[in-house]
């Protein structure tokens, strides 16, 4: 009975602030999403290498730059979209 009433209610955290509003937590989460996007683009880079392309000189430099810069761009972009939508 009590369980039926508890399912379907949003969970409330005890205390006045929730973890998501906490600024250090947001910083950690931002860094974590940046790491994840970098990992994602690195994986795509390996997939490109597995097809055999991108080993020669200018291409591998562009791939490395794209991984680094694209990670930052994606992180800022996704956080910006989330901030604008909410």
């Amino acid at each position, binding site marked *: 009975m009590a369980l039926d009433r508890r399912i379907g209610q949003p969970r409330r955290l005890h205390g006045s602030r929730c973890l998501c509003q906490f600024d250090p937590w947001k910083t950690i989460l931002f860094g974590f999403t940046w790491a994840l996007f970098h990992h994602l683009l690195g994986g*795509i880079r390996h997939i490109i290498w597995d097809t055999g392309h991108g080993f*020669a000189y200018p291409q591998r430099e562009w791939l490395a730059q794209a991984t680094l810069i694209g990670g930052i761009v994606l992180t800022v972009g996704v956080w910006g979209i989330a901030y604008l939508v909410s």
Partner: protein
Amino acid sequence: MRHCREAIAGKILAGKIWRNDNHGDRSRTGYPRDEQGALSRLCQIRHRGRMEHARHLPRVVPLSIAFIAIVLSLAGKDYAAARAELGHPVVAIIMLLFILSGIFHMKLGMQSIIDDYVHDAHLKEWSLIANLFFSVCIGWLAFSRP
């Protein structure tokens, strides 16, 4: 690993080896063949075809993109709307596949690390077993309601 890949890339660029060549008495990555010209079964299993690492078949990439899209579409919604969206069957299946493929990706990655960097045979065996056990435990706990 990276140095092997770069060494092979250097040789391909120098025209010394081709990707689809037979390479005589060794495989392209340098593993010895036996009398019939076959790699030992362990080499075949561990180094499938052209790739040094185990083939990461569950491509997590499109599922990650879908997951990010779903999370972004949840921003700004209240509880009932978010619950309705996550209750949609296609969305739920995408989330489920994302979690499962992510866990499998984690297991494969850790297995590659153990395979490459743990040299003691005993420790390697037990590390691989522990890796699989950990991954299965994570998969079980992810879908169990406390």
